[in-house]
């Protein structure tokens, strides 16, 4: 109290202490600016947050992308069902890969399907308070179910309605097994968020065995394999010889709401040919 009163009364001349304070504050500001513009705290480093703490996947410079050709799709629902069987999603409203009938502006009917788009600038990754989801070296947006706290901020952030929360643990038998496949991953516990993984278990095992995802079925997402009309194409965008790169080169494609700046890795071919 007394000290403060004394200070109040003294004339305000910049003394040595003030100079030190100003210098300290300036230094701190410089350090802070450096930290948030470059290095691990910078905005660009966001994809690395999960990677630092998770085992790096064996990526040899590959980046997995998918093409969905809406002009080929016949709306058979097989890709939805095999996804549910392979990833053990028994409830239809928990589908990772959703599909619904749609119509273009010109009145052409088509069937719209949408897995996780595995955005390179994924909004869901940025917002996770515990780094339970991250963009892998090979571009896949992965989830750690043991770290997720179930706050659902990623669901709120995702503009494509991709993420699903385990409101309960389904006790139901999976109606799509074994007709459409068998479980390759464990059913998720109650209270965590889940999403399409591009069947990462197949990709990781396949790459380790020297297989090529997108070419060898064992290493390719189930939805791509099952499609009776080959409307889904998968592969490494950095490999010019991959079926995906060739398909992209030969077709006009677009990505969903590019204006969001999310840089999705799923490309679509328009349902109707250009007039």
């Amino acid at each position: 109290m007394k000290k403060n009163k004394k200070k109040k009364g003294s004339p305000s001349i910049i003394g040595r202490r003030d100079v030190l304070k100003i210098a300290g504050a300036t230094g701190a500001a410089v350090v802070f600016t450096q930290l948030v513009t470059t290095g691990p705290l910078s905005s660009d480093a966001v994809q690395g947050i999960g990677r630092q703490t998770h085992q790096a996947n064996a990526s040899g410079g590959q980046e997995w992308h998918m093409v969905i050709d809406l002009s080929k799709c016949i709306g058979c629902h097989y890709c939805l069902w095999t996804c549910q069987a392979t990833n053990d999603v028994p409830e239809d409203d928990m589908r990772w890969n959703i599909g619904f009938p749609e119509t273009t502006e010109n009145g052409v009917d088509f069937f719209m399907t949408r897995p996780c788009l595995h955005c390179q600038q994924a909004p869901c990754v940025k917002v996770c308070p515990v780094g339970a989801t991250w963009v892998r070296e090979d571009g896949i947006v992965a989830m750690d179910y043991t770290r997720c706290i179930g706050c659902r901020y990623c669901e709120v952030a995702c503009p494509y309605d991709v993420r699903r929360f385990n409101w309960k643990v389904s006790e139901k038998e999976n109606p799509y097994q074994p007709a459409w496949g068998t479980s390759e991953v464990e059913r998720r516990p109650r209270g965590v968020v889940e999403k399409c993984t591009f069947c990462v278990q197949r990709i990781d095992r396949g790459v380790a065995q020297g297989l090529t995802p997108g070419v060898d079925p064992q290493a390719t997402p189930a939805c791509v394999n099952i499609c009776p009309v080959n409307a889904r194409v998968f592969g490494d965008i950095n490999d010019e010889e991959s079926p995906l790169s060739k398909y992209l080169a030969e077709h006009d494609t677009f990505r969903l709401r590019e204006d969001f700046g999310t840089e999705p890795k799923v490309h679509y071919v328009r349902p109707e040919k250009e007039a």
Partner: protein
Amino acid sequence: MATTELTYKRSAISPFFFWVAGLAIMILIGIAGMANVLMNGLQVTGLNDRVPWGLWITQDLSSIGLGAGAFTFSALVYLFRVKRFEPLARAAVFVGFLGYTSAMLALAMDIGRPDRFWHPLVYWNVHSVLWEITWCVILYSTVLALEFLPILFSSNYFSRWPWIRKFGELLHRGAPVMAVIGMGLSMLHQSSLGATYGVLSGRAIWFKPSMPVMFIISAVAGGISLTLLATILTGKLTNRRLISLDLQREIARLAGYVLLGYLYLKIWDWAATSYYSHSPGTASALSRLQATTPYTQTFWWLEIILGGLIPAFILLYPSLRRNDRALMIGLGLIVMAVVVNRWNVTLSGLVVPPEWSPGVLGGVLAASYFPTWTEVAVSIGILGYGLLAFTLGVKYLPIFRRARAHGGD
């Protein structure tokens, strides 16, 4: 006077008993709801993957927002040394402490894995605004607890242990330091709570830089208002004048000016994003909002007119401000508006999801939400906790007594 607790008039004992009993019932209802949530998971809520945040997030945001009186008064009294506001500082800290603990209770119910509540402390994602909020809220709750302990320790109960009292006085000497830390933390997370929505580039209604600013200013207005309202109401019920009329009116005027500043920014926030400009995403979302939800109406009528212009007029017009009843109504309307605002902001962004389908049908499943009885029960329980703790605190703790350990005047 300095050492006596607040005493209730003989005739007031019976209503007091009913009041406490009512609050206890609210808490019991809440416990039943919480048990249901913990046993059966969040399937017992009305939440879904389209609208994953609802009543509890609103309660959480409101409790923290309305607890902002704590940092406002601490900063005013201990940092800027506006000593005449000191009689309200304790009440503000107490209300803030209850607000933050209420928020943490609501959050503990809302997350799918309450057993992992500590994860943000261990697993860092510095790029997540929610990570920053978690840290700030935990640290600031600690600051509030440290600010509150001296009040607790100076109660008569602790007079039998002089060393505890000494410890409390020692803590209280650190009040200016805690005010600085508290203000820093509050300026971070009170605004980051708005940024939670403001940074989401995929949600046109939310995505704007004004969000964090609007949240902190409305929190300051709401926080001051709730603290003052609680003080006046307690004074009326105990037939005591807890703060001088001059002080009461000065604080009311302060809240009025903050509210006016908020309304000014709010009008420009609206005009710049949806009146003078036409951003396709925002325009589409707002028109869907108007067509399918009541939130356009609740924005204008409850947030702007009933909770903004009218209370600003009451608080700034001298003859209305001098009328205790009008003043209490004005303050209550501001508190109401903060809650409505948090609900509107949360729900409006969620119920009109962005259209990402390349077709014209949209295909995006209809997003709607209505809280279930379990959610309401839990919210009632948390509210009951806050009110009961406030009631008992005011009755048994020296909340509205001049600080002996400090002041010395």
